[in-house]
């Protein structure tokens, strides 16, 4: 494959990652949300492998396999199992004001492009143009956590942010050193364990996973 083709494939995958991020921003059904998250992980994993091939960095293959097992298979499986066990309704919440959320999302993409402009200018890598998309994915994950009120949605937003960060590491520098990537993966696993416990706690204490009910701690009660 020549470098042009590789760049095009990578850019296409990056666009798909961004698209799934927007999809998650407006998805109302909880299973749909998990599916989208798994798809995002898959695009991420494939693009990492391609970058690894094109740049001749074998350690990116390890990262790619790690993403595949963790974010495409393991985490969606855990989330599905938890949802089944906690008997959460399929329609979880109505998203307030979809058009407005979308507009903010678009603004975030533009903001990311302007913010990462100096990095793009300096970089000589094939992947330089996708750093902005990675940052936008992080920002959209953040937006999702702010605008959505369900514990599961917030966690998926959190994991989507993590996806964006991983993407950023691949695109800016062909991945962080392996020690760091392994450490991050372990941290995500522990986090998954902890939010699993939390879903049970929240569900038994508040009778639902709606975070809106958690508003007792306020200033000057």
């Amino acid at each position: 494959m020549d470098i042009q083709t590789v760049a095009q494939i990578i850019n296409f995958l990056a666009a798909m990652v961004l698209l799934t991020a927007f999809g998650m921003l407006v998805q109302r059904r909880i299973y749909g949300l998990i599916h989208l998250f798994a798809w995002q992980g898959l695009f991420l994993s494939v693009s990492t492998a391609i970058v690894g091939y094109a740049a001749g960095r074998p350690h990116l293959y390890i990262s790619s396999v790690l993403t595949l097992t963790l974010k495409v298979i393991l985490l969606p499986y855990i989330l599905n199992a938890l949802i089944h066990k906690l008997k959460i309704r399929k329609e979880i919440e109505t998203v307030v004001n979809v058009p407005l959320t979308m507009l903010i999302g678009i603004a975030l993409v533009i903001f990311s492009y302007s913010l990462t402009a100096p990095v793009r200018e300096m970089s000589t890598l094939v992947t330089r143009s996708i750093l902005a998309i990675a940052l936008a994915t992080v920002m959209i994950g953040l937006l999702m956590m702010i605008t959505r009120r369900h514990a599961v949605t917030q966690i998926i937003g959190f994991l989507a942010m993590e996806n964006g960060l991983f993407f950023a590491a691949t695109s800016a520098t062909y991945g962080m050193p392996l020690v760091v990537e392994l450490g991050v993966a372990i941290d995500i696993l522990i986090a998954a364990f902890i939010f699993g416990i939390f879903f049970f706690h929240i569900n038994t204490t508040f009778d639902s996973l709606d975070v809106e009910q958690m508003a007792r701690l306020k200033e000057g009660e």
Partner: protein
Amino acid sequence: MPLLILLVVPLFAAVVLAFVGDRKYAPEINIAGSAATFLAGIALALDVYNNGPMLAGNKFFFVDAFNVYLAVLTSFVSMTTAIFSRRYMRREREHGRVGHWGMRFYHAMFQLFIFAMFLCLLTNNIGVLWIAMELATLSTVLLVSLYRTPTAIEAAWKYFILCGVGIAQALFGTVLLYFAAEKVLGEGGEALLWTNLIQSSGKLEPTILSLAFVFLMVGYGTKVGLVPLHNWLPDAHSEGPTPISAVLSGLLLNIALYALVRCKAIVDGSTHTHYAGNIMMGFGIISILVAAFSLLRQKDIKRMFSYSSIEHMGIATFAFGLGGPIATYGALLHMLVHSLAKSSIFFTVGHASQMHRTQDMDKIKGLIRGKPLVGWGMMFGAMAIVGMPPFGIFTSEFLILTATIKDAPLMTPFLLLGLAVAFAAVFRKVQPMVAGEIPPYQKSMKVAHLPMLLHMAIVLAVGLYMPGFLNQWFHKAVQILK
């Protein structure tokens, strides 16, 4: 060798305690583990004191005057907190607030948290630093929700989500830093080492580093508890068990600030301006003001003192941002005395709230008559924390104020206003609690003397007379951060 002990003992103790569980001698194992860590910390400090900075484990670890003093502080406070929590947690168990599994969990996670903090401090790799910071968050999340009350779960969730988001920003900053460093230092682990980054900071691309610092500031600043990223802090501190409030306030905030200060040194070295320092000063002064005025409105005793932590972290951040030998010296001293005084206050607060079975300040009364040690302990703690002479916090705040008048005179009125408001607020709240008659519902109980007295004695001693070795230590650290 001491370095290895420092890291292995807490990890080993965590595993042992996970198996020992709720047995009678679990608190003693916890204390023994922490005491061994403290001895190793002292040994490491002596090593660095005599032989200068050192690299170990294939450059994976790095110890100099700056982080070794924080390591000793961390091991000391974790030891005294372990001693305090022996009585405290036993009583909580008797009252049925924690169950069998809760106790197992508490001890194991306490040690794991200590391990994560040491890894943060001693590692030479900023990627590993990030991982350890995340581990420190994760190990304390479930500790904050230990009581399983709705408010405790809410506080822990908030802590988990906000610090998770914050620290994700820090990872993005780290990626950008690595991107800039890789061009100069070559790829692979070498480009993430403090020692290499500091040496070649002049060659790193300034625009990228300025961008990276914004993300690092937001990320680690969330963990330091700086306004406007502080929302999780009062909740987590007020809802978790008191020993955890003591270590969160006294240690974890310091560690996050440590990470930020190291990053600042690299960024300022690259940009040759005062860019990073200015950002830190801004965050610092806003934190001081907002926290000082929030202090006035508090009703919950632990919540009030956690706002005081935000204020003091603001002061230290401001001073590090200001830079210069006097301010940096003041900030280093401030980190030390604040963490000692604040953890001591949380010990007395824990006893006081157990004696009254409430955290509501209106219901806590007559502490001096009921239990003089707790009453006077809180009184002196409050005097120390608001910066009355002759306590050590007066010295550090005085140094910082002097440097501010000299280098950033425009900031002086704001700093003074914050300090004055905090002074008035803390005194107005503490005075009725310690004075007055004993209310009928107050119950007397055994207290842990040693941790309180030891901490206050050191804070007082540092205020009266600065020992030579500590002075020299701080001067070396100031040299490093110049």
